[in-house]
């Protein structure tokens, strides 16, 4: 009997199979994810994701009998009162619930499994990228990351690469014929025994000749051994790193939302989901992402997430107040030289008529120049089709922002009518554009 400890063996033997499985269920997974993100909090991104998918693409069919028809007999244990010929009422759900069904009907209606966080995000943000990453790269000389770049023949001791070094050493020793200690030992041993008279040379020569010969050879080997060192400075190899400039790896995301009475809970929910997606997406690209929540009615304030989504507040609507508040926060805490700034604004599009122009101006003059990207989503469950109440199907704010979205690359606006729109709209906003590269 042998005992072998396999615990140190690499785990994740099934990683390949798992990836195959995930890629096979990609479409279904993406649908399930869209469903899943409806239920999440904005900043909850740490956990893996439990996703339920239908088994269509992963079902493994086999010939099996239909358990609802035909005659079969079963042998069961635990009879208490039955006699031969007794009749027992069929349980309401039909005959399929006995031993047979549970053995081979695997109960494969839906398939629940947990994705790792990376798998989750990979799927979620497939073919999406951040627009306009280029601009800040130039400004961020201080953020450089070391990156492996081959090997060097010199360097600090702590970067000595043992494997490489020993490989060169081995090759050199082999090439120069450095005698092995065993070879020397063998000669020494023979010499000793010859001198002690234990053995005689095999070819019948006198022992002295052989001794002289061996001594000379031993001398030669020893000399050679001292000349060819075990490790030569020539062998040394060091890991080499290059400093590659990185774009600033931190971002702040401003969530601006109108919380005036015209935004009802349903609309807020829609906005929340959008913000959450954006947060996840940014987290994927930056080492750290800060989120700043600014809500506004006729005046704006920075609040925490819970208040942002659930707090009650009434008042009029002055959108520019939020924009000003945002600028104030940037000024105070997020110097543009070291932060990438993203803005997402959600509103139902209502604004005091005189304020719209002011907003557009603020955006053009102050906000857009310092932000990486700004997205404006108009939450509009009725899609502005509420008959004749509003004269056109465009909101005040939409009309005011529209020219901006034409002239500025880093500003986009979309409408969201129902939860199903969010992901497509998001996808649309961030899909990879050939033009940016």
């Amino acid at each position: 009997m042998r005992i072998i400890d396999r615990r140190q063996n690499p785990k994740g033997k099934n990683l390949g199979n798992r990836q195959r499985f995930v890629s096979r269920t990609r479409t279904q997974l993406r649908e399930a994810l869209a469903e899943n993100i409806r239920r999440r909090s904005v900043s909850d991104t740490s956990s893996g994701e439990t996703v339920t998918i239908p088994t269509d693409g992963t079902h493994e069919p086999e010939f099996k009998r239909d358990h609802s028809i035909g005659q079969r007999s079963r042998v069961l244990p635990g009879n208490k009162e039955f006699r031969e010929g007794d009749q027992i009422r069929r349980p309401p759900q039909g005959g399929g619930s006995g031993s047979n069904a549970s053995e081979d009907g695997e109960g494969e209606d839906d398939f629940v499994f947990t994705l790792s966080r990376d798998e989750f995000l990979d799927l979620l943000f497939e073919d999406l990228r951040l627009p306009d990453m280029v601009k800040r790269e130039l400004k961020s000389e201080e953020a450089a990351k070391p990156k492996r770049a081959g090997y060097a023949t010199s360097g600090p001791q702590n970067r000595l690469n043992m494997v490489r070094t020993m490989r060169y050493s081995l090759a050199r020793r082999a090439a120069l014929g450095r005698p092995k200690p065993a070879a020397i030992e063998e000669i020494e041993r023979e010499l000793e025994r010859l001198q002690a008279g234990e053995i005689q040379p095999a070819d019948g020569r006198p022992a002295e000749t052989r001794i002289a010969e061996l001594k000379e050879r031993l001398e030669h080997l020893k000399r050679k051994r001292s000349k060819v060192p075990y490790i030569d400075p020539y062998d040394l190899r060091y890991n080499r790193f290059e400093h590659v400039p990185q774009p600033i790896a931190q971002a702040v995301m401003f969530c601006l939302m109108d919380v005036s009475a015209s935004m009802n809970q349903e609309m807020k929910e829609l906005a929340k989901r959008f913000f959450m997606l954006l947060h996840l997406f940014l987290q994927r690209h930056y080492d750290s992402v800060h989120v700043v929540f600014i809500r506004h009615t006729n005046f704006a304030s920075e609040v925490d997430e819970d208040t942002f989504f659930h707090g009650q507040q009434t008042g009029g609507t002055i959108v520019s107040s939020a924009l000003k508040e945002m600028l104030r926060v940037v000024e105070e805490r997020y110097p543009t030289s070291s932060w990438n700034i993203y803005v997402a604004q959600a509103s139902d599009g209502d604004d005091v008529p005189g304020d719209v122009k002011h907003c557009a101006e603020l955006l053009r003059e102050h906000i857009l120049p310092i932000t990486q990207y700004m997205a404006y989503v108009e939450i509009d469950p009725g899609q502005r089709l509420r008959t004749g109440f509003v004269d056109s199907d465009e909101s005040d704010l939409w009309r005011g922002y529209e020219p901006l979205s034409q002239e500025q690359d880093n500003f986009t606006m979309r409408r969201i009518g129902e939860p199903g729109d969010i992901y497509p709209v998001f996808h649309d906003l961030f899909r990879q554009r050939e033009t940016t590269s």
Partner: protein
Amino acid sequence: MSADKPNTGAHGGGKKGGQAKRRTKTQTKKTGAAKAGAPAPKKSGQLLFEGADWNFDTIQRTYDAIEEIAQGELGLDLYPTRLEVITAEQMLDAYASVGMPVMYSHWSFGKRFAQQETLYRKGLQSLALEIVINANPSLCYIMEENTMATQATVIAHAAMGHNHFFKHNQTFKRWTDADSILEDLRYARRLVAECEEYHGQQAVERILDAAHALSAQGVDRDRRGDRPDLAAERRRRAQQRHAEREATDDLWLRTVPKPSGGQVREPEDEQLEAQRRALGLPEENLLYFLEAHAPLLENWQRDLLQMVRELAAYFEPQRQTKMMNEGCATWTHYQIMNRLRDKGQIDEGAMLEFLHLHAHVIAQPNFDDRGFSGMNPYALGFAMMQDIERICTEPTDEDKAWFPQIAGNGKPYQTLREAWAEFRDESFILQYLSPRLIRDLRLFKLRDDSAEDNYVVEAIHDDAGYKRLRRALSEAHDPVAAQPRIEVTEANLRGDRKLYLEHRVQDRRQLDAMETRRVLRHIAFLWGYDVQLSEVDADTGERIAVHNPKD
């Protein structure tokens, strides 16, 4: 602890017992000296281990003691064993690849892994304590989380019980080759990897998906499993190729003198007949049929089909002997643990833990209990082994009437060993299920007919019922009967090349239409042309239903 702890123990079967004994002795002495001051154990032996923790020494020591009992007292004959300690995660990995240490890549294993992982992480299911592989040397995986008492049970169960069963049971001997299974699996993995490299992952998956769907139909049941002999296989293929040529060669058909003398047959009939003969129809091994005769498959695709078919054959004996195999292993661990206790080699704590585990394993809920999910093979198997032992040693008059060959023969172990070697679940029940056990389990037989409103109790544990119950239980343990019987009945190789399958319907038990259609799509893909499956009543010959892949 070192990562790999080779052991000096001999691997040759013969020397093993002696060496093991010697080592045990010296080690017991050592433990004895070390614990001189401890209170004297009740019996003569020394404790093999104490407490829950284990290390490689305690496992080695325990293994040797267990092996001594298994070989010396129970008369088991074993393949050499390799114990491999693995983590829970590795156990999950092993689950996913149907318990095998090596497996080819396929998404379905990933799916199984994801399923198991979810169940495990949610705490809905605990992991198996061990997996044992029918190979020579026998591979036995034990989990690091197990306590020492559990490890001892697991060793007695798998490394002794299953091991002996694998080595001696006829079904295993005929169907599988313990010497080559690992090599076969490595071949499978290599083959799949190579094919993927040349033909792309998708193309390979397509074939494997289809082959997996048919793997239950890839076993030669009627031949009752002669082990697939590669040379014979090659001969069979050559013959098939030859026959195929004959069948499709017009010239040959016209020039060779016809065997039928007086009767003049239509040439078309003649041709069809020749074709059927060449194709070996009717053929129930669908996978083999497609591998040999599907007109459009390329060689690598046929190789993949063959590989899946051979692996299916490897698992077949496990299906056919599940209950006996578990019964044998459970009986063995029960015997061994009790004997270890009697010798004072394990303490009461370990024994209690063992009994708890054992009770859990052999629990058989009644049909109306919440946890009921059919007959528990461990429970039935263990009960039958115990019962046979009882019949051999303390038979009642009833036993003497029912089992004159073995009742009171006083050789329970030999009787059991013979039974383990010669039977499959189905025949084992037919041979050995006693009225006493039927009464103990209070078995009854229920008729479930979709045409009737009620279930009908057909037999209970009384004189009139014993034989009927025995037969019914035996049938329920026959995987061949449980599987719908589907045959290739006709394949038109010249016209539209349509393939005709037939399901012989017993007791109006038809196929699940949706599933059938899905499988037919796989068959149609492999065959390359249209496929049709008819369901025919086995008694009347009436055609009940027709399935097409495109419905």
